[in-house]
């Protein structure tokens, strides 16, 4: 469930031309991830009670997906935000609707990685369908 949504967003970003996209589970060292890179992760996941139907069970799922764009400390915030608006934001806006939408943006320095980071939080909703076996 968790990896499906992360991989889906990672694929969308790559198809939109965003380079160096990694998942939060990727163990590759930072110095090999490229000068500027993007990390996709999930901060929370909530599965609602299943909705039953004669042949299918539907599990409504809601998650907070974090897409973090990291750039070297010598980049200006304007450069970072420009890259976000040009490459990442169109992908997020294309997914946006009543159930899935861009929720917040936060800019902060990451002293551990010596980067500046722009974190976009997306409130994502989807439904997992499971076929039922007939009695």
């Amino acid at each position, binding site marked *: 469930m968790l990896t499906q949504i992360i991989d889906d967003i990672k694929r969308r970003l790559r198809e939109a031309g965003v380079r160096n996209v990694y998942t939060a589970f990727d163990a590759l060292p930072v110095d090999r991830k490229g000068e500027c890179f993007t990390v996709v992760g999930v901060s929370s996941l909530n599965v609602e*009670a*299943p*909705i*039953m*139907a*004669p042949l*299918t069970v*539907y599990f*409504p799922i809601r998650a907070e997906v974090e897409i973090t764009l990291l750039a070297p400390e010598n980049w200006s915030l304007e450069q970072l935000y420009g890259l976000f608006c040009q490459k990442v934001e169109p992908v997020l806006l294309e997914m946006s609707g*009543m*159930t899935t939408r861009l929720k917040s943006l936060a800019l902060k320095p990451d002293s551990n990685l010596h980067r500046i980071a722009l974190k976009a939080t997306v409130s994502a*909703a*989807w*439904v997992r369908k499971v076929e039922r076996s007939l009695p």
Partner: protein
Amino acid sequence: MSTVLTSREATPVSIGLITLYCEGFKAQAVTAYHEEPTVSGGTEVTARLRRRTKLTFSGRVYGRGETFLLAMDAMTNTQGTLNIDYGQIRFTGCLIQGFSVQDNGQDFVDAQVILLSGGSAPKEE
């Protein structure tokens, strides 16, 4: 102290041609009494009316609930009665008093059906 995990499933209820998986159920019954004043200033019950038991079935339907809405709309316009099985109880001679479908902008709709039952008995296997 012991901990027991519970996993109750929604109860399927057939209402005419459709099946609603009920996540909530409520039965309400009232008796109405007619009172007359007595010469001494008190009251006397002169008539008693046991109203039909009101059954409220509620649940969620995946999608926008078009099939459910159309079926319920058609059934509400008919005069016939229905027999409804809920778990191990059979409600007979049920009349549809009303229904509601509420879309809150999610991937499912909330549905509710209100019936007036003519009687109830344990369901025969």
